Structure formats: C-alpha cells, structure tokens
C-alpha cells in the first residue's frame, strides 16, 4: 500500500517536473527564430473559426436561459429594469469566459491531444526531430499561441451572442428595443468588468493549448494512448480552467472590487 502511494507521488512529481521542462522549452522556442507564421495562421483558423459555431450556439442558449431563469426573482424584487444589467455583468465577468473555455477545452484540447498523440504514435514527431527540423516550434509553439489568441476572441464573440440571446428572451415578455437593450448592458459595464475577464481568457487559452500539446507530445507509443491523451487533455484542461478562474477572481477582487 505504502509503496504504491510512494510510486504514485513520485510519478506525479516527475510529471510536474516534465511539464516545467516542456514549458521552458516552449518558451525558449518562441524566440528561437524562424517563427512558423503560416502554420500559426492555419492553426488560428482551425481553432478559432471552426469553434465559432459551437461557442455561438452555447452562448446564445446560456444568455436566453439565464434571462428566463433570472426573471421571476428579479421581478419579485421589483427590479425588472435591472435585468439587462444583471445579465451583462454576470455574463461578461464569469459565464461567457468560462463557458467558452470549457467548450474549447472539450473541442480544442482534445483535438490537439489526439492529433499530436497520433503523430507521436506514428513516429511523425520523431521523424521531424530526426530530420533536424524543430517539432516543438512547428507543432507546439504555433498551437499554444493560437489558442492563447483565439480563446479570448471567441469569448468576446460569445459574450456578444450571449447578450443577444438574453435580448430575445427579454423581448418575449417585455418589449425592449435592441439599441436600448445594448445601451443598458454597456452602460452597466465597467472597464473593471471587461479587462480582467479578457486577461483571464488568455490564460484559459494558454492552459487549453499547453495541456493539449503536453498530453499529446508525451503520450506513449501504442494506439490506445491516442485516446488516453485526448481524454486526459480535456479533463486536465477543464480542471485548470476552474483553478485559474478561482485564482483570477481573488486577484480581481483585490484589485478592482473594493
């Protein structure tokens, strides 16, 4: 029993060490020269454009559902006119970024994990390395930077679509014009609502790309490891998103919400 626990801990510690090394290598390779622009753009397209539909639909439904759910309690308080503000603040600060990130963890982290995992299994990564090319620069740097850029963008798009969903839900019962609705939303928002939310999505994006790449790049050789890599990429990335969210809320409340 004790022995098992010790080997378990040792493996865990080794894994952390390996992740640190991987992070350092990633960082060194950003500035190593010969940045792969075309691959970076391709990844941005793959990651950003192809997730837009999914993020849009989920955000739309979230906005709609939230208004429907919030309405009775807010109406009971007699603060019906506060509905746009309530939605805007909760969506921009928290729900939009986290929903987008979780969706992206499911879609992007898993596909990066599976793609790099199968490249590892089929010896493609070894082949790249052996040819004298730099697989880290071509495969990892581009993907991590692309997720760090695209997830914040997707989150902003998701925010807008989510607020629009809220507008439609609100319009079923109360009639409010679109310009007035968005005016109310934006007026209720502050710089301190927007900036921390965007900054945290950059970290979400980084975590998604990093975990996906790490799990894929370090998967074992064997067909079942592709599935394992994809699966553990999703689980780990989702976990990281909540951890980062918890840390981010502490920092923002210290800095902004006094």
């Amino acid at each position, binding site marked *: 029993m004790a022995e098992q626990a010790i080997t378990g801990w040792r493996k865990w510690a080794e894994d952390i060490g390996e992740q640190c090394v991987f992070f350092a290598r990633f960082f060194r390779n950003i500035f190593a020269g010969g940045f792969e622009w075309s691959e970076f753009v391709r990844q941005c397209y793959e990651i950003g454009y192809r997730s837009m539909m999914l993020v849009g639909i989920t955000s739309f439904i979230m906005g709609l559902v939230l208004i429907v759910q919030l309405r009775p309690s807010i109406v009971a308080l007699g603060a019906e006119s506060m509905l746009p503000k309530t939605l805007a603040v909760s969506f921009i600060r928290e729900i939009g970024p986290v929903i987008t990130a979780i969706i992206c963890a499911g879609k992007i982290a898993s596909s990066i994990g599976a*793609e790099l995992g199968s490249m590892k299994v*089929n*010896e493609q990564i*070894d082949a790249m390395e*052996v040819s*004298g*090319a730099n697989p880290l620069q071509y495969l990892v740097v581009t993907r991590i930077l692309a997720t760090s850029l695209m997830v914040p963008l997707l989150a902003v798009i998701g925010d807008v679509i989510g607020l629009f969903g809220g507008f439609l839900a609100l319009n079923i019962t109360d009639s409010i014009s679109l310009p007035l609705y968005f005016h109310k939303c934006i007026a209720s928002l502050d710089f301190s609502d927007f900036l921390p939310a965007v900054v945290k999505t950059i970290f979400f994006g980084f975590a998604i790309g990093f975990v996906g790449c790490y799990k894929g790049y370090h998967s074992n050789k064997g067909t079942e490891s592709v599935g394992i890599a994809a699966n553990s990429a999703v689980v780990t990335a989702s976990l990281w998103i909540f951890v980062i969210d918890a840390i981010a809320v502490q920092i923002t409340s210290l800095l902004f919400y006094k």
Partner: protein
Amino acid sequence: MKATNENISPKKPASTQKDEVVIHAKGIKVGFVDNEVLKNITFDLKRGENMVVLGKSGSGKSVTIQCIVGLLKPDAGDLTVFGENVAEMNDDELKQLRMKIGFLFQSGALYDSMTVRENLEFPLTRVLKLNDQQEIDKRVEEVLDGVGLLDAIDKLPSDLSGGMRKRVGLARTLIVKPEIMLYDEPTTGLDPITSREISELILNMQKKYKTSSIIITHDMECARITADRIVVMDDGEYIAEGSYKELQKSDNKIVKSFFSETI
C-alpha cells in the same frame, strides 16, 4: 627543410580518407525499465559502406539506430558519429549531426496532415532553409521520380498504400542527400518487384553519393543485393559478422535460420 617535407606528403582532409570510420560504436548498452535491450553492441561503419543488420523481431535493431541519431541515449558505451560523441552533444550540435543523417522509419512516418509534395518540401524549407521555389520543385520532382511516384505528388498520405507511403518516406529522407542513411526495414510489406527496386535504389544511392548505410531488414533478397557486410543480432548482441557468402556457410543455428529459405 621541415616545411618542404610537409609539402611533399600533405595530409588528406579526414573526409576523403578511404577507410574513414563514420560511426564507431563500442560496448553500447541500452535498457528500459526492466529489460536490457542492448547488451554489448560494437561495430564500425566505414564511409561508403552498406551494413545490413539481421535479427529477429524485438532483438533491438530499431533501438540501435535510434541511439545513433540521439533519440535514445545509451546507458553505457561509446558512440561516436563523424568522430563526435552523440551522448555529449547539445541541441545545436545534434541538429547539425541530424542534417547529415537520413532516417527511414519502419512505418514511413509521413506527416499525415500534409500532401506528398508538402512532406517532401518540409525538410528542404525547414532544415536546409531553401526558399527558391523553382529549386524546391525541381528537387521534389526529381526524388519522387526516383521512387516512381511522381503522379501521387498531390495526394495525402491517407490516400496511399502502405508500400507507396514507404517509398515517399524514403524519398523524403533522400531529398536532403544525407551522408549516412539508416534504413529501418525498407522493404517489409512490399511486393517482390518493388522490394527489389528499393534495394537497387539503396545501392544506387551508395554509388552516387558515397552514402554509408545501415540497413535493418528481414528480407534476404534485399540483404543479398545491398550488403557489403552483414551482422546478425540476437538478444542484444551481434553474434555473427561477414559477407553474404561467408554467412551462408555459417554453422550457427540462428544465422542458418535466416539463410535457410534462400538456398
């Protein structure tokens, strides 16, 4: 006086010396968690020589050549390539070394998100850093023609058969004109005609570019065509060495079993 003496017998630069050793391995040991794969591997590969390695599955043939390119580190022993110790190289030195070595993977290892053309361009643009598109196209077409797959140039690896993939893999390693070639089972899974063509291609490469090669194979026909020297490997050690004719006459049971099918 001294100066004239030196002029009379100028030293040849190392790279043109005839019996120059390009890979020197002595007492290589490699072990994984609980099995020792290579126990004591010792050999020299000379410039322009084709060395064939025979051995049953799992005997550590692939592991040996992975050590040569620095994918794996030996636990003990000396391994020098072009006179430099592989285990002590830093990333840059390793990269320089790898540019001179071609490695054909057992599976071909094509990048499956890229077309055949992009696969072949990859080492040219990323490793040799060529950017003259005409020159790149010319080299791609030339080498692809060499393996007889010019009409598959715009296909994706998933649309190719196993044998075609292997030939493209071969083309991708040959395109940078390496000084040392490491072939991991170049003919396995191919029909006899294509196998023979590949074997002859290996031989041509050796003649044309003075490449030194290590060829891992189970295919005795390939061994017969390409080998200057054959070593037989069993359980992490070399148990026999010699030319094809010499080994044919060997009394060793394992050696015999390789040569028995080919009377």
